[in-house]
């Protein structure tokens, strides 16, 4: 990915320039890394502005049954961090790529790198380091990292490593988060704030939660793009979320359902991405109509 000389990172630029943005998620290695490559390319063609790739971990927290099953399939297929990075090496997408994984995977990568590097050292420290993961990710061309189980209070080492290698560090914000904790999170966030539409686990639902509106209102004072996820499965949801004021919409479980159930997943993913992107643009248009007289929203552009 090219690094521009402006203050906008790849990710912020992708969201602002393609406003309203579509952010798609699939689990790497479900059902194989070869197929993941094909699916990522399809999502890119379908109009994704950012693509999140899940690096599977055996003990995830707060993933719903759909993504949990995808993670299990990916682990059964033998997906490893090194295989994952090789995949990212191979991918040439227009949309910047992010990795979503658990802190354990980042620490484990650091400690196995350390033991490889210092095999002759008398005293292996067993103190893991987050930098090798970030360095390898940057080298492979990742633009950002999301770590659901990393509290903002403990994010400094990863934050510094991401800054050094030019990666964004995205945080998830719950509908219940406010006050001091929201400030703490927002002081660490870069790229975009991942706004969770409702409490609970990931997974496609039928409606958009009213909590979304409250969350977006609380976040409006922070100058970072906001994208809403958890429970988005249709173009109409995307429209509603953008209309509520989000800069982007995040879709995961609905795509994984397609991978698991479709005869031609690549085609189905591309079509779904198109539907969602159209929905998002419709939401932005409705918004523009409602807010006549206010500063004109960035005009939605299709790629």
């Amino acid at each position, binding site marked *: 990915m090219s690094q521009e000389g402006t203050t906008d990172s790849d990710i912020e630029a992708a969201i602002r320039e393609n406003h309203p943005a579509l952010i798609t998620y699939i689990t790497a290695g479900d059902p194989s890394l070869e197929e993941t490559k094909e699916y990522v390319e399809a999502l890119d063609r379908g109009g994704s502005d950012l693509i999140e790739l899940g690096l599977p971990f055996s003990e995830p*927290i*707060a993933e719903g049954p759909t993504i949990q099953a995808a993670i*299990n399939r990916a682990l059964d297929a033998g997906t490893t961090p090194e295989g994952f990075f090789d995949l990212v090496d191979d991918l040439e997408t227009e949309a910047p790529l992010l990795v979503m994984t658990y802190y*354990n995977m980042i620490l484990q990568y650091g*400690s196995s790198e350390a033991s490889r590097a210092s095999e002759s050292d008398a005293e292996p420290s*067993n103190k893991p380091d987050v930098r090798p993961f970030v360095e390898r990710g940057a080298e492979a061309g990742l633009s950002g990292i999301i770590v659901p*189980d990393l*509290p903002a209070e403990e994010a400094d080492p990863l934050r510094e490593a991401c800054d050094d290698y030019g990666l964004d560090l995205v945080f998830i914000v719950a509908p219940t988060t406010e006050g001091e904790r929201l400030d703490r999170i927002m002081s660490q966030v870069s790229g975009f704030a991942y706004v*969770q539409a409702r*409490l609970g686990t990931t997974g496609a639902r039928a409606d958009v939660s009213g909590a979304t509106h409250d969350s977006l209102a609380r976040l409006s004072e922070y100058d970072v793009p906001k994208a809403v996820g958890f429970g988005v499965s249709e173009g109409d949801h995307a429209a509603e979320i953008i209309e509520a004021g989000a800069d982007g919409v995040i879709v995961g479980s609905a795509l994984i359902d397609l991978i698991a159930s479709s005869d031609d997943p690549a085609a189905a993913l591309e079509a779904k991405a198109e539907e969602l992107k159209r929905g998002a643009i419709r939401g932005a248009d409705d918004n523009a109509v409602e807010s006549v007289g206010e500063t004109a929203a960035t005009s939605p552009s299709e790629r």
Partner: protein
Amino acid sequence: MTDGTFDGYGGRHVPDPLQEPLEELAAAYDDVAKSDAFRTELRDLLEEFAGRPSPLYYARNLSDRYGAEIYLKREDLLHGGAHKINNALGQALLAKRSGRDRLIAETGAGQHGTATAMVGALLDLETEIYMGKKDVERQEMNVFRMRLMGAEVNEVTRGDQGLADAVDAALEDFAENVADTHYLVGSVVGPDPFPRMVRDFQSVIGREAREQIQERTGGLPDAAVACVGGGSNAIGLFHAFRDDPVDFYGAEGGGEGSDSTKHAAPLASETGTDDVLHGMKTRVIGDDTEVHSVSAGLDYPGVGPEHAMYRAVGRCEYTGITDEEALAAFRELSETEGIVPALESSHAVARAIQLAEAGEHETILVNLSGRGDKDMETAASKFDLS
């Protein structure tokens, strides 16, 4: 972190939606659980419902055999047959007083699930237990017990279908239902405040033992020994002695040997690493190691963060007791004293015997954390009892 860490171990490594409920729980714990009314109700229930204080027993035959004074803290005699009830009562009371009407818990062998079902029935709280399918099959009696007391037992079929998978499932339920649900964590593991809260509820073990052994011997023991899976019975015993000149020994599930690739000994093994698991920073077995112990209650890849700290600062020595050593101690205590220990507790007995043989300690206090009825099938097949 502002609180909840043990020299950098522990913390609250959970997704944002769980941060607030955990902060609330920590606040409720600091507030409600320290009130006199709460303490009085808990103390009464510990006495009348759970059967505290548990006796301290001088193991005369074992002591004669090995030339040390060996004392057993008889948590195996509590209601439910293990120390688990101490914590279950404390947390369920706290949940009730905080306005929750539903309890969830994970369980491996079924001991903690049973304790949770007991307090759920006692306090009229809806109770759901998550248990790996593998464990449901090998601990059928405990499943029947839980259901009999009105708990719903959810079979977890993902992953390895074991304890770690049950924890994952329970965490998901908690994330979804935080408004009315209390997650009754069964050991000194997980995100803050669980490690310190469970420790406090279990520390009654050491407080009693400390008084009892002083009454009996006029002094403190030279060593305190307990098995360590998550480590709640061990912390429960150690805590009251933490500032005393008493050596601590933790016996982990050594499986096929803590230098093999099949064990549950993240502290004793040289390949253990600092890592994040189930919401806490702690010591975890190396990634080339398969978690294994003959005892389901020790079959866990991580350990409570306070133990990780005890190891780092050298306050406690941790050793892997192999499956074979634990089984030998299980048989030996049964034969010499007429007490059948849980396989978990047998690890502590085995470590105590090693220490007695080494001859460096005169008085050894062992936490006999549970009884062995649940392990009869394992014993019957190992020792050809049928």
